[in-house]
């Protein structure tokens, strides 16, 4: 027996290039994304990103439904930025139908928008803390997040999918007594946001995050990354300032664009923490300026029937960045085409330069730092350019088509 153990077998493994598959189901990733990482020992040489695991065919589905049904469908593209999606869609429809909104409904839209931004940023800050192994901070941040969800529940009746927007206005109003309650909660959240900011400036946290996932200014411009990912790299983009929508044209002076130049995971987290304070300022300004008036125009069904054939694009600044909606109506309460460009698609492309050259252990932190929302990024349909048709086919048919060509 002893002889057997003494024998040393020589196993030849080529460590120069090793391919490590990550995902789609992986403990470090909350949503399905597949990364094939080529490594030399610990160093990452190449990354192949593959999306499409949560592709549900929403754009094709929207073409079979009427406008109000589509409103609830686009809300379910993403559970974290659901209000941004409905705002983008409804704004495009209102442009086609030339519907003018009351000031109060626009302000309420902005209010929910900012609350959503805060809830999304707190969500991400918590996830970042979790990824660097700081579970206490994760629990603390998510506890604060519940306070915002409570506000949502009181205003709209829902925690996640608010269903606040409708054609020609919003569905729920604020009572004067509730305004005080929002202010009270904001004070508490501001206090804990300051605490979170302090913790993120701690040396242990900084050492884990500084220099991880660097995306410099030129690369960020080239890849057209958006939102806090771009702002962390020093690119000044914010749709709220550049193309004001909802009530933001009146609120221009109440917030500023947060920029950081270090372009790493720390910078992107800092941008989000500082944007919490900007959002708190904005909500206070909105509540101060909140005008009186009706919150919606007339019956939604009547408005939907009035919408003519036409097309429009609308831009909103979702918590993750610029969100584009292209809508083309057919004049019969339905849609010819719905196209959505979500912020995660350009941001995921930024992952590649961020990861190359770093280490395997940094993958979860880097992926989390762009705040990816896979549910947003998977809506690809097959477009036949010669016939100008949009087809959704199954794999068998696609293979057969490939053989014919």
């Amino acid at each position: 027996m002893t002889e057997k153990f003494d024998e040393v077998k020589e196993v030849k493994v080529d460590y120069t290039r090793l391919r490590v598959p990550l995902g789609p189901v992986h403990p470090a990733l909350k949503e399905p994304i597949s990364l094939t990482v080529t490594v030399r020992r610990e160093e990452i040489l190449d990354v192949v990103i593959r999306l499409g695991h949560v592709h549900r065919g929403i754009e094709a589905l929207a073409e079979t439904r009427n406008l109000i049904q589509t409103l609830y469908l686009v809300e379910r593209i993403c559970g974290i930025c659901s209000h941004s999606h409905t705002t983008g869609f409804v704004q495009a429809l209102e442009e086609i139908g030339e519907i003018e909104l009351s000031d109060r409904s626009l302000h309420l839209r902005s209010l929910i928008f900012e609350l959503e931004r805060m809830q999304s940023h707190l969500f991400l800050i918590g996830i970042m803390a979790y990824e660097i192994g700081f579970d206490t901070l994760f629990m603390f941040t998510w506890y604060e997040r519940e306070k915002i969800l409570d506000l949502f529940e009181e205003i709209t009746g829902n925690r996640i999918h608010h269903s606040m927007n409708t054609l020609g206005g919003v569905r729920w109003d604020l009572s004067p007594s509730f305004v005080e309650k929002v202010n009270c909660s904001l004070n508490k959240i501001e206090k804990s946001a300051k605490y979170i900011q302090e913790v993120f400036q701690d040396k242990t946290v900084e050492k884990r995050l500084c220099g991880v996932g660097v995306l410099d200014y030129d690369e960020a411009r080239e890849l057209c990354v958006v939102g806090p990912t771009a702002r962390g790299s020093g690119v000044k983009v914010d749709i709220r300032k550049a193309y004001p929508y909802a009530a933001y044209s009146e609120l221009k002076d109440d917030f500023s664009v947060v920029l950081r130049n270090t372009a790493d995971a720390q910078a992107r987290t800092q941008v989000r923490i500082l944007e919490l304070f900007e959002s708190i300022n904005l909500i206070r300004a909105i509540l101060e300026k909140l005008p009186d008036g009706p919150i919606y125009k007339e019956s939604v069904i009547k408005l939907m029937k009035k919408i003519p054939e036409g097309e429009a694009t609308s831009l909103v600044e979702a918590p993750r960045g610029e969100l584009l909606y292209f809508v083309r109506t057919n004049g019969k309460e339905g849609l010819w085409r719905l196209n959505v460009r979500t912020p995660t698609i350009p941001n995921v492309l930024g992952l590649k330069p961020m990861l190359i050259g770093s280490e395997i252990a940094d993958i979860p932190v880097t992926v989390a730092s762009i705040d990816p929302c896979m549910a947003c990024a998977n809506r690809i349909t097959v477009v036949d350019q010669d016939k100008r048709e949009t087809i959704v086919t199954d794999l068998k048919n696609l293979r057969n088509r490939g053989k014919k060509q």
Partner: protein
Amino acid sequence: MKIAARSRIKSPWLFHLNTGSCAGCDIEIVATLTPRYDVERLGCILVGSPRHADVLLVTGPVTRQMLPRFIRVYEQVPEPKVVVAVGVCAISGSPFVGSQMIEGPPDKIVPVDVYVAGCPPRPEAIVNGIVTALKKKFG
């Protein structure tokens, strides 16, 4: 009650699989672990591998891409296992009914023990769903 079943009820470990949901239910599942609802006081932990889990939480209508992965993950969960479908999508495919990319709902593919309704369900409902499933299987 046998000692194994008793210990399973004492500390059910959860594995969460997103099969194409909008992330709404996933956030609520994570929210159940956070201080407000805190299922860890009941012995639940969200684990990283299906091989360690007793309860499989499924969210979302099963998309075509996730179908083989879903079956594989289900097979990796050791017996006796409990499957809880969280959210309306996992019950009927609700807003995505009619899409050609949807192969679900999950109960078409694997046996599901408990359905938790809501879009997304409240954390309390998810906790209740897990408790009901454990009672049904071991109680």
